[in-house]
C-alpha cells in the first residue's frame, strides 16, 4: 500500500469546506471577521496557523506559492511553511513575487505591485482592532455591529496628545469599504496604502483567535486619521545599503557594538531583483566592490 500519509494540502476535506464557506462570507462582507473552527496545525500558534489553514483551503496543484516573513523569503518561518506545502500539496514554490499565484505573508506586503491573478494570505495574530481597547468579545462585536468606532479615534488622539503625532507604527487600523474598521495584521503602516484598491484578493487568517476576514480586489481601504493629523506612511530616511532603493520599506540592522548600522530592504525578492538589474548601494557585496576597484585601477 502506498496510501499517502496526508490529504492534499494537509487538511481533511470537511475542514476545507468549512474554511471555504467562511472565506466566501468574508469576501461578501469586506473587513468583517468571520468566526471559523480553526484546527490544530503541526506548528505552534503564532507561526502562521491561520494563514496556513487559509492557504491550504485555496491551494491547488497548479498554484505557485511564495511565503514571506517580514518581507523575507529566507527566514525559518517562511522556509518551513513553503516546505510544508511543497511536501503536502506538491505545489511549485517561488521567491519571485510576480510569478506567485498565492503569497502567504507575515507582516509585510511585497514591494512589487500585485496583480489580479494573485491571492495574498496574511497571518494574523490578533484580528480584533478594538481588542486592546475593549477586552470583551461581546462588546467589540456590538461595536462593529453599530459601527461605533469612536474609541479607536480616541486612541489615535491620545497618541497625538502624548507624542505630538500618531505614534502607531504597525497594525495601523483601516476602514474597509467605508464600513468595518479592520486590523491589517502587524504590517508596518508603510504598507497600508498598498491595500487600497489592490487588484489582488487579500485574505486574512487568525488561527488561535479563529477568525477569517478579507478585502476583495479594488476595494477602498482607508487608514484612520484626522484632518489636521493626516495618515503618513513611515520609512527610515535612507536608501537601501544593498540596492539603493529610495522607496522600499527598510530594516535597520545593527552591524557592530559601536553604533554602526545599515538599512536594507525588508523585501528580499525586491532587493535582489534590483541588485540583479544593476542597482548597487553603499554596502553592496563583493561583485560591486570588485567592479569599483577595476574601474579605479583601470
Amino acid at each position, binding site marked *: 500500500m502506498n496510501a499517502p500519509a496526508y490529504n492534499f494540502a494537509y487538511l481533511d476535506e470537511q475542514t476545507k469546506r468549512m474554511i471555504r464557506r467562511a472565506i*466566501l462570507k468574508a469576501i461578501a462582507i469586506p473587513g468583517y471577521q468571520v468566526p471559523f473552527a480553526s484546527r490544530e496545525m503541526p506548528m505552534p500558534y503564532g507561526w502562521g496557523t491561520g494563514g496556513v489553514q487559509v492557504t491550504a483551503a485555496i491551494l491547488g496543484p497548479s498554484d505557485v506559492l511564495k511565503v514571506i516573513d517580514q518581507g523575507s523569503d529566507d527566514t525559518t518561518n517562511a522556509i518551513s511553511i513553503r516546505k510544508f506545502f511543497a511536501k503536502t500539496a506538491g505545489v511549485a514554490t517561488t521567491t519571485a513575487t510576480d510569478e506567485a499565484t498565492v503569497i502567504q505573508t507575515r507582516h509585510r506586503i511585497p514591494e512589487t505591485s500585485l496583480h489580479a491573478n494573485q491571492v495574498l494570505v496574511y497571518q494574523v495574530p490578533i484580528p480584533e482592532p478594538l481588542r486592546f481597547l475593549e477586552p470583551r468579545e461581546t462588546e467589540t462585536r456590538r461595536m462593529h455591529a453599530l459601527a461605533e468606532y469612536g474609541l479607536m479615534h480616541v486612541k489615535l488622539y491620545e497618541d497625538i496628545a502624548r507624542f505630538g503625532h500618531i505614534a502607531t507604527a504597525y497594525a495601523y487600523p483601516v476602514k474597509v469599504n467605508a464600513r468595518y474598521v479592520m486590523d491589517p495584521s502587524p504590517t508596518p503602516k508603510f504598507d497600508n496604502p498598498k491595500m487600497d484598491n489592490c487588484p489582488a*484578493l487579500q485574505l486574512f487568517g487568525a488561527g488561535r483567535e479563529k477568525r477569517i476576514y478579507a478585502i476583495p480586489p479594488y476595494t477602498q481601504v482607508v487608514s484612520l486619521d484626522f484632518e489636521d493629523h493626516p495618515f503618513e506612511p513611515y520609512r527610515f530616511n535612507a536608501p537601501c545599503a544593498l540596492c539603493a532603493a529610495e522607496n522600499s520599506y527598510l530594516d535597520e540592522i545593527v552591524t557592530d557594538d559601536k553604533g554602526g548600522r545599515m538599512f536594507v530592504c525588508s523585501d528580499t525578492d525586491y532587493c535582489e531583483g534590483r541588485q540583479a538589474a544593476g542597482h548597487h548601494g553603499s554596502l553592496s557585496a563583493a561583485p560591486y566592490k570588485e567592479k569599483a576597484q577595476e574601474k579605479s585601477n583601470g
Partner: protein
Amino acid sequence: MTTIAELPPGFVDKVLSAQSTFRSVMDAMARPGSVQRIVPMAGAPATMMRGTAAIALTLFDHDTPLWLDARMSESSDVTKWLKFHTGAPVVQDSSIAAFALVSEGALLPALECFALGTSEYPDRSTTVIIQVESLDAGRSFELRGPGIDGVATLQASIKPFDLFERLGMNEALFPRGIDVVLVADDAVVAIPRTTRVVSKGS
C-alpha cells in the same frame, strides 16, 4: 425507486475537483459580475445543472442546512443525490438555511424569507444559488462595488426579471444581506451583498 447504485456519480477526484470548483466560486465572489467556469464535472440529477452539482459537492455537508425550491424538494432524485453525496440536511424553514437551491428563478420566494444574518453575525446568512438561462447573452447590467474595478458589465438572461431590484434591499440591510450565486450550466457569477446595479440595458 432509485437505488444508490443508480444515482449520478459525484466527482471522480473529490479533493482536486472540489478545490478547482471552490477557486471558481471564490473568484466569482471576489470579482462580482465576472463569469467564471467550473471545470470539473460530476453527474447531476435532473433539474440540477452541472455547475450547481459541482458547487453542492464542494460546499455542502452536514453543517449546512439546505433549502430547496418546490421543484427540487419534490424530486426524490435530487434529495437522494444530495443526501448521499453531501449529507446536508434539507430544511423546510428557509430562514435557517445556509444555502438555498433554486432550480429556476420563477420559484424564488421573497428574499426576506431567507436568513439575513444579524448585525453582530452578518455571516450567518443564506447563500442563494439560482439557476438561470444564460450568463453570456441577454440584458446587460452594469455593476459597481468591492471587487469591481470601476464598472463591470454582466450580460445575462435572468429570472426573476426583477432580481436586481429585489437585491436592492442589501443596500439598506448592510452588513446583513443575501449573497447570490447565479449558475448557467458550467458558468458562475456571484452577486455578493455589496454589489449594486447602476444601470440596465435591454
